[in-house]
């Protein structure tokens, strides 16, 4: 276990290193123009631009620029090119919102995905199974920005049942308002995953239900419900957990760009999207590294949980 964690930490550092270099280099290569020119503004003299170049180390060799930037990333002193704000402070403002969105949506999609998948498998071939299959396919096919926009327009703006985007902190508006503001974004984000998860679980269950040990369980004289939950479901859920960890890591690492933007949640994802729009390298770089961190972290957690759920898996080998 100890060795496993050490290996994973080393792996995490390597992944973050690779991701940061790639992101850094991409911005050197894309035709984004000179950040110094944009920072200097329209009516600037070459002297001013040169001065900006100098202050921001744009004249240094690329590897020195990289080292300089990474130092700032890890000391939390990285400054945005476009509005000169501290990137880490902005991310810190966005993280609770992103977490609120991600955790809520992940719970919803897991609970709904598992219950619908189980129901579908038990009723396999029947009418409700077919109906759920169709619904799941529709859910998977609808892009988040479209569902989100529809929800926001009809449920938020037209009927006025829900707030039209935005985020309220618990400290500010209370728990009720917090949930009230998050219901639409949670639903929009969860719809896609519910479809995917219920489909995967359904097929896992239908595979497992014909396994020999399920027949053994039935021959013991326990109820069908116990057979399903103790033997079938538990073994079918193991692969779902992996998927869940990865998707959750992606969302809290700033991957819910579209949902956050459509509902104006001002989370890390939205911050990321806006920074890309302005070709603002520092926020993009820092959010990408953060995202990589969360994904690798969740991956490690998934592996540990996996080993706890399935005794055949040993960590470290």
């Amino acid at each position, binding site marked *: 276990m100890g060795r496993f964690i050490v290996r994973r930490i080393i792996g995490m550092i390597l992944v973050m290193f690779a991701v940061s270099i790639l992101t850094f280099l991409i911005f050197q290569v894309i035709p984004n123009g000179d950040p110094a020119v944009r920072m200097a503004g329209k009516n600037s003299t070459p002297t001013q631009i040169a001065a900006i170049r100098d202050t921001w180390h744009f004249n240094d060799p690329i590897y020195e620029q990289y080292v300089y930037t990474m130092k700032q990333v890890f000391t939390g002193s990285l400054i945005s090119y476009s509005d000169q704000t501290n990137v880490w402070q902005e991310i810190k403002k966005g993280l609770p919102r992103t977490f609120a969105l991600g955790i809520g949506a992940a719970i919803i999609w897991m609970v709904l995905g598992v219950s619908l998948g189980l129901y579908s498998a038990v009723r396999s071939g029947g009418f409700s199974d077919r109906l759920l299959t169709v619904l799941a396919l529709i859910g998977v096919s609808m892009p988040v920005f479209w569902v989100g926009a529809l929800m926001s327009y009809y449920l938020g703006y037209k009927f006025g049942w829900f707030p039209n985007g935005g985020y309220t902190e618990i400290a500010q508006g209370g728990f009720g308002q917090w949930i009230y503001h998050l219901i639409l974004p949670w639903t929009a984000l969860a719809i896609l995953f519910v479809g995917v998860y219920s489909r995967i679980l359904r097929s896992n269950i239908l595979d497992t239900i014909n*396994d*020999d*040990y399920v*027949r*053994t*369980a*039935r*021959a*013991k*004289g*326990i*109820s*069908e419900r*116990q057979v399903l939950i*103790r*033997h079938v479901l*538990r*073994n079918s859920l*193991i692969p779902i957990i992996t998927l869940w960890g990865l998707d959750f890591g992606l969302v809290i690492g700033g991957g819910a760009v579209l949902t956050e933007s459509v509902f104006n949640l001002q989370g890390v994802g939205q911050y990321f999207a806006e920074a890309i729009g302005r070709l603002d390298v520092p926020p993009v770089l820092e959010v990408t590294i953060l995202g990589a961190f969360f994904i690798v972290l969740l991956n490690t957690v998934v592996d540990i949980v996996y080993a706890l*759920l*399935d*005794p*055949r898996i040993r960590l470290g080998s």
Partner: protein
Amino acid sequence: MTEPILVIDHLKVDFQTDEGTVHAVDDVSLSLAPGEVLAIVGESGSGKSVTAMSLLGLNRGPNARFTGTAMYKGTELLSASNDDLRKIRGAEIAMIFQDPMTSLNPVQRIGDQIAEQILAHEKLSKAQVRDRVVELMERVGIPRAAERARSYPHEFSGGMRQRVMIALALSCSPNVLIADEPTTALDVTIQAQILERIKDLKEETGTAIILVTHDLGVVADIADRIAVMYGGRIVEQGTVDEIFYDPQHPYTWGLLGSITRVDRPRGERLPSIAGLPPSLLDPPAGCHFRARCPHEFPKCLEVPPLEDRGCGHADRCWLTVEEKRAKREVRPGEIGLANKEEVAPV
């Protein structure tokens, strides 16, 4: 003779498939006396496992159709509700399955899996259950049982897992034990150990056993009576001595001829029955063994009845007793009772 504990009468099992109806079991009647060991012998697809599974309703499903009756202590098993059947499963009739590598839940501790069955039928405290589990595991010959109860299936060898399956099956002292090819997936030496163990337990507990196998050699030592199945039907039925020393059906002759034996001349090819078992999707008319039988004659186009020649030795063949005696390749006395040392996978 004592009152039988289980009576199967005219059991038919059909499965609807995309290609048509499979007549897996066709008119099987059997009875089992308390403490008796009945072997059902046949090759793959002969309907022997389906017969066994049907008793516990383990092959029930939307595509399966069962007719006939199976009476166990006043309960008709084929039509029993799932709830009634649940009370019988494990407690009254228990089952050991073919492949011990896959028959145990890979993510549950061995002890918990045995305990689950005990708790399904009896109200016992945790400590009582734990003691019972350890005692059961010791009884089937698992060393360091208390410690091993906390292990997972993948930490056991195949033979040990089959012992666990036996312990599981015996945990509620069932009246009937159905062993479906209990040794097929095991090494020859382990096969012998497991059979020995089943035999011992039968002596100790007096449980009646239905032993399903494709290997006649396996049953010689342990069974009281043998039913030979072919193509979903019983083709011959009798005591072990009757089947081994006075086999009536040409299929049984073939089966007996294909047992490996120490006294067979070296270098001689092991005889086998030519051809393949019939498809039960569209079975041939008349005797199912007709196509592979060297003694086929026109009468075989009609289904021969399972004719009792007295004392319970019955067979399904149109040949007269005299004809059989003349044609039988395996002559009485030539085939000795196969000992377990000679047992080899067919």
